[in-house]
């Protein structure tokens, strides 16, 4: 009985990190993974070494698996799930978050909830080896608990740039143990990306002035700066008519009239939620815009799958090309 208080006290308060891992190694890996854009290839190397040290340093933890079978994987973030599917490693997926909607098979995996409200016990119940998550997933405590249970947690940043796709594919390759396939996929995507960008940059006509609207239930929101939508419009060779604020805001009739967009880009899901194109144009705020006057031309309302358009995943080159094609007709 005397052993009781001692053994209970020996449980470190923060999960059992200090009891198992070397915190230094864990920190190093976390940093290397969290800021890959600055680090480039050497950073990745350091990250890889760090991760290897981390795994090696873990004394046969209950949940980690030292590579005898394919790693069990949980992805948190639709584009990460897409990348795992693109590598053909979907059999390794034991759970995905609620934003993982594409491809359709991803919806059949157990759902771990919304990315910012993960449950530690829920995740551990799926007995993962790796959790691959977009930065901002959490709560942070849950990620800490995952790490202390011996699960490798990789966070992938979103900066709304081409590098996001590269980081996503690389991370998926590392997590699934399919580095070679990831390199090949990355090469293909890169090729397509370079072609599309060259075509967009070669286009000399006026840049169309475009408004991005999201209406996934509730009142429609328009995209300001520092959004994935803003980045995509810019990449596709258009100007976002909203430059006065960051993030998404509700649209007002007067500001729509002042913004005077030539065309509108939205998500397929928004159109479905609103009830089709004609219902979409019935919003009174839009009736004062140049785009509204040409609404019957069929060329001024473009829509794309939300995850493809805003996820910065493997479908980026493809969706960018389609967006550019559509905008050319404006």
């Amino acid at each position, binding site marked *: 009985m005397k052993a009781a208080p001692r053994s209970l006290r020996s449980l470190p308060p923060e999960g*059992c990190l200090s009891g198992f891992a070397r915190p230094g190694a864990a920190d190093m890996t976390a940093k290397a993974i969290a800021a890959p854009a600055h680090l480039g290839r050497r950073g990745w190397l350091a990250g890889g070494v760090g991760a290897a040290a981390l795994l090696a340093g873990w004394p*046969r933890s209950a949940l980690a698996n030292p590579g005898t079978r394919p790693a069990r994987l949980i992805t948190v973030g639709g584009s990460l799930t897409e990348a795992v599917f693109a590598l053909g490693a979907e059999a390794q997926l034991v759970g995905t978050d609620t934003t993982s909607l594409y491809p359709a098979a991803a919806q059949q995996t157990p759902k771990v909830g919304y990315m910012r*409200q993960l449950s530690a016990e*829920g995740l*551990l119940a799926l007995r993962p080896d790796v959790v691959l998550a977009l930065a901002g997933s959490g*709560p942070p405590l849950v990620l800490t608990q995952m790490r202390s249970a011996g699960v490798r947690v990789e966070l992938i940043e979103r900066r709304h740039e081409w590098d996001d796709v590269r980081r996503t594919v690389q991370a998926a390759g590392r997590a699934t143990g399919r580095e070679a396939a990831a390199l090949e996929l990355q090469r293909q995507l890169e090729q397509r990306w370079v072609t599309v960008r060259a075509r967009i940059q070669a286009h000399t006509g006026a840049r169309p002035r475009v408004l991005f609207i999201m209406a996934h239930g509730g009142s429609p929101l328009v995209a300001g700066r520092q959004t994935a939508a803003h980045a995509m419009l810019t990449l596709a060779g258009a100007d976002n008519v909203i430059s006065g604020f960051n993030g*998404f805001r509700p649209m007002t009739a007067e500001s729509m009239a002042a913004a005077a967009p030539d065309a509108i880009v939205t998500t397929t899901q928004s159109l479905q939620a609103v009830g089709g194109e004609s219902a979409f144009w019935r919003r009174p705020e839009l009736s004062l815009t140049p785009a509204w006057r040409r609404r019957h031309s069929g060329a001024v309302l473009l829509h794309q799958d939300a995850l493809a358009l805003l996820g910065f995943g493997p479908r980026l080159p493809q969706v960018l090309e389609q967006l550019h094609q559509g905008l050319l007709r404006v």
Partner: protein
Amino acid sequence: MNTLALKRSGAAWLSQRPSGPAVLGALALAMLLSLVWASGQGAFGLPLRELPAVLASALWPSAERSAAELVFFNIRLPRLVLAVAAGAGLGLAGALMQGLFRNPLADPGLIGVSSGAALAAAFAIVLGSLWWPEVPLALGTWPLMLMAFLGGAVVTALIYALALGEGGTRVGIMLLAGIAINALAGAGIGLLSYLATDEQLRNLQFWMLGSLGGARWEAVWVVALIALLSALLALRLARPLNALALGEAQATMLGVPVERLKLLCVLLTALVVGAITATTGIIGFIGLVAPHIVRLLAGPDHRWVLPGSALLGATLVLLADAWARTVIAPAELPLGIITALVGVPFFLLLLRSAHARTL
């Protein structure tokens, strides 16, 4: 004739009311049973019958710790302890507030501690990233907990100060000031959520819905200690609160230091609810419902209402959280949704029942 019969049966029921200690015993038993049951609930397959083995292996540790041990001692157990502490604290605070205001509508949020904590949390989540971009601000992180606690304390102090008058604290003014300040805090939260980015909005939203997911041992010990000390202090207030139920003047004549009693009630509530809310976000309805149920069972005597509310509050939160973390596993529902979703209809049913006429 009919009403007379009803009155008679009501009186008969009153005389048959179970004694206070019996009710307390039953509530304590219910809490223990829920605690044992809840410790076998969770997404991770770790049922009750395997727990003895897990506990034994913790007492006599082997070289290797099993996954079940990790899950139980680092994830599930702190949650259970937090559920007991938070539920007990909220129930107790609710009973104190209803005793202080002599109003069954009162709940701990009334003195502004919850809304103050929420406003401060919203402030930290939305504007914090401007000043400290490196500090993570989500449910269960230290800076956010500290901000929320301070926010609760400041707003409570403000409402208390507003209610201070010549002859002491005017409880009626405190009630009205509480409602007004709560509305103001709501507006502030609305403004901040308008300014928030999508990510901040989600963090804020989950904070407002409450969750025990932020249970880590360091925080759990603090909350448990505060709840325990407050409970011990609050139990000494039972007789003075019974006297206060007769009216302030009567209580003063009975020798109760009424002003000190009011201050103590407010201080205890602010402390315990502030600590809980900072750790879990807002968990509604426990503070309102628990004292009511205990009063229906054991009568209005604060000697039973105060400890009974604590026991019942703990039971309710234990059960609600067990449900929250299993019903859509491996994901989990915010706890505040469940306490409201289950608590409110149950409460309404209770109000409609014949027993409610003794309120």
